[in-house]
């Protein structure tokens, strides 16, 4: 037993990546000279040694069964000498040295339902989170909404007909696991009802001072309810961040009548041209309407097409809006500007328009 314990390794870390690199990558590591996108989802990298590496990028959907992974492995064995990689947006990439393998591979991927694309001026996969599949906090589903939106936008994944890259992200609650706060279009699950307190159990599962302290707006105060030491919430001070729930299970916010989705626009991450930007609120609330979330898919498509039609070449969503101004954006998008759009958090004053630079 002591022996067994001794043998039990910990902290050995991930396998070294080198053993997973295709030989052409190892040989040309750090020697790549330029690349070219050959067609949607296919690019070639040319090395200083003149070696050529072809990449085929395919949508994975991210939630994968081991069956699908094994199918991928079969394809990688057949066309890529047994190597495969995934991208930072959860697409799968097949790295080929033989140009003639590209089309057969694409056909095989199509056959198992995995389109090729997401490269260049296109919409790549939606970075997203767990939703009702796995998380306790979710105000909406993740995989379902993503599926509906991408079904609807698939042409923009498969083709390269946009002014620039468009990155969509989804998070199922304000914790925003992902890059929702910096995406061209972001879909964010929101609660709209203050926590319902499980007074009977609160004291057993949470420390009251911690719960009170967790609220950024100081809406939570210790209170005695039905003889139980518990807390109360000043509802008009609650903005539904769910931080109290993260800290204390007896404060759930999930609520079918009031949960739903908000849409944000104009964020970006790259430093290309404009500095990185946060996403800004476009549509405060759309209902959860499973299984196909039609309100959400329509709203997102409208935004994509509005931008596609009006932006200059290379202009990301946020760069375009910055050029034309937010009032024009709201007008063109047919979105009513409401109180909800006006920031009222800590730095709100800095979002007011402090110049006469206006269009009419």
């Amino acid at each position, binding site marked *: 037993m002591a022996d067994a314990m001794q043998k039990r390794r910990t902290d050995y870390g991930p396998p070294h990546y080198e053993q997973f690199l295709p030989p052409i990558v190892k040989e040309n590591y750090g020697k790549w000279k330029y690349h070219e996108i050959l067609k949607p989802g296919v690019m070639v990298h040319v090395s200083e040694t003149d070696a050529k590496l072809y990449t085929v990028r395919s949508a994975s959907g991210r939630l994968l069964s081991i069956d699908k992974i094994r199918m991928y492995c079969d394809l990688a064995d057949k066309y890529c000498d047994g190597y495969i990689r995934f991208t930072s947006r959860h697409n799968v990439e097949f790295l080929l040295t033989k140009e003639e393998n590209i089309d057969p591979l694409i056909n095989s991927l199509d056959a198992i339902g995995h389109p090729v694309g997401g490269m260049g001026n296109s919409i790549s996969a939606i970075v997203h989170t767990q939703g009702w599949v796995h998380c306790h906090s979710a105000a909406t589903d993740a995989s379902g909404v993503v599926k509906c939106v991408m079904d609807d936008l698939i042409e923009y994944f498969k083709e390269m007909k946009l002014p620039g890259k468009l990155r969509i992200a989804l998070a199922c609650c304000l914790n925003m696991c992902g890059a929702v706060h910096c995406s061209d279009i972001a879909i964010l699950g929101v609660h709209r009802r203050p926590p319902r307190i499980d007074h009977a159990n609160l004291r057993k599962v949470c420390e009251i001072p911690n719960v009170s302290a967790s609220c*950024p707006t100081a809406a939570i105060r210790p209170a005695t309810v039905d003889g139980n030491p518990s807390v109360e919430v000043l509802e008009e*001070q609650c903005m539904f961040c769910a931080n109290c729930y993260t800290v204390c299970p007896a404060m759930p916010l999930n609520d079918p*009548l*009031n949960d739903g989705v908000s849409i944000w626009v104009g964020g970006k991450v790259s430093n290309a041209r404009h500095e990185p930007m946060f996403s800004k609120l476009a549509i405060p609330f759309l209902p959860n309407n499973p299984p196909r979330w039609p309100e959400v898919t329509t709203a997102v498509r409208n935004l994509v097409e509005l931008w596609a039609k009006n932006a200059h070449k290379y202009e990301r969503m946020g760069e375009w809006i910055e050029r034309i101004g937010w009032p024009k954006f709201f007008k063109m998008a047919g979105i009513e500007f409401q109180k*909800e759009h*006006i*920031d009222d958090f800590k730095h709100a004053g800095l979002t007011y328009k*402090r110049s*006469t630079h*206006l269009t009419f």
Partner: protein
Amino acid sequence: MADNIPKTPKLDELEKGGWPSFVKEIKMAAKRSPMGGDLLGQLEQSYNEKIGHWKHGGIVGVMGYGGGVIGRYSDLPEKYPNISHFHTMRINQPAGWYYTTDALRKICDIWEKHGSGLTNMHGSTGDIILLGTRTEELEPTFDDLQKIDFDIGGSGSDLRTPSCCCGMSRCEWACYDTMALTYDLTMHYQDELHRPAFPYKFKFKMSGCPNDCVASIARADMSIIGTWRDQIQVDQDAVREYAERGLDIQNDVISNCPGKCMEWDGKELNIENEFCVRCMHCINVMPKALRPGKDRGATILIGSKAPIIEGAFLSSVFIPFMKITPPYDEIKDLVDRIWDVWGEEGKNRERVGEFIQRVGLGNFLDAIEMEPIAEMVAHPRENPYVFYEEYYEEDDGEEEEES
């Protein structure tokens, strides 16, 4: 004739140089009034000691007025008895700071009789500043000012003396009559100007166009800045003339256009007015060729102020475009609604801009019964912390007021 003029070796250094010398001015005044001599003495002492010698404030005034006089007492009254009192009177300037020499001379005569003979033309709010007199001279001074129709300006927690750029009187770009509006508001709000009843001061400043020659966006609780809604008026011949005379239209004009809405093919200047942000730059550079549009009015902005306490603010857009015509009821109605809410709920020493920021622009709009519009913000919120005020309850499925 005063004979108390002291030796001031430090201050004398400031009689040298090309810029007008305030020391010379004080010395001139000192020949008429002993206040000047003691002021020189105390100031020389300040220059030696690197510290001012005035006591903190002091409430003095003129009968029937709650503001307009800044009380000031020397902290060395034995040494400088002639400035033991040295109060300032703020006199409401005529709009645009135009005078006849006749009017100016009368002011001088009054100040020769009752005060130090020193002035600021003008204070940075815009008043005529009569610098230095004794408490017992305040009322007689006001008496004489009445006779020449000059009234007192604001101070304390009241409306401050409104001021404006010269506008239509001498500027081709004025999009509304700044002087007329300034006069009208000043007259309409005489009570608010003279009797402090606000949580804190409130300032109006009117500029005729976005060049903002009275710095209204930086120092007025309400900034009224001229603009236009239609197209910039272009005289293409005159544009070509500028080009011929050596103006680099591409580099000097077009690449500086924040709307990125201009094109120049060497012959025609094309402006996509839909994206023009009315910055004035192209007009400023080619005043003979370009003019603001014909559908003119003003943008109303709110809330600018100096840094104490929340940090400095610039004014922010409240009404993107308003026609500015007498009797100016639309502005007055807006002002009244703002003052009502701020007057009721503003904290002591809280400027209206700070108040709006504290309660939230959206809530403030609710309170004064205005609709939010996108022009009010540089961009919508970046954080997801929305205060929804209502939610559905299980039993009814209808939207409920919060409990």
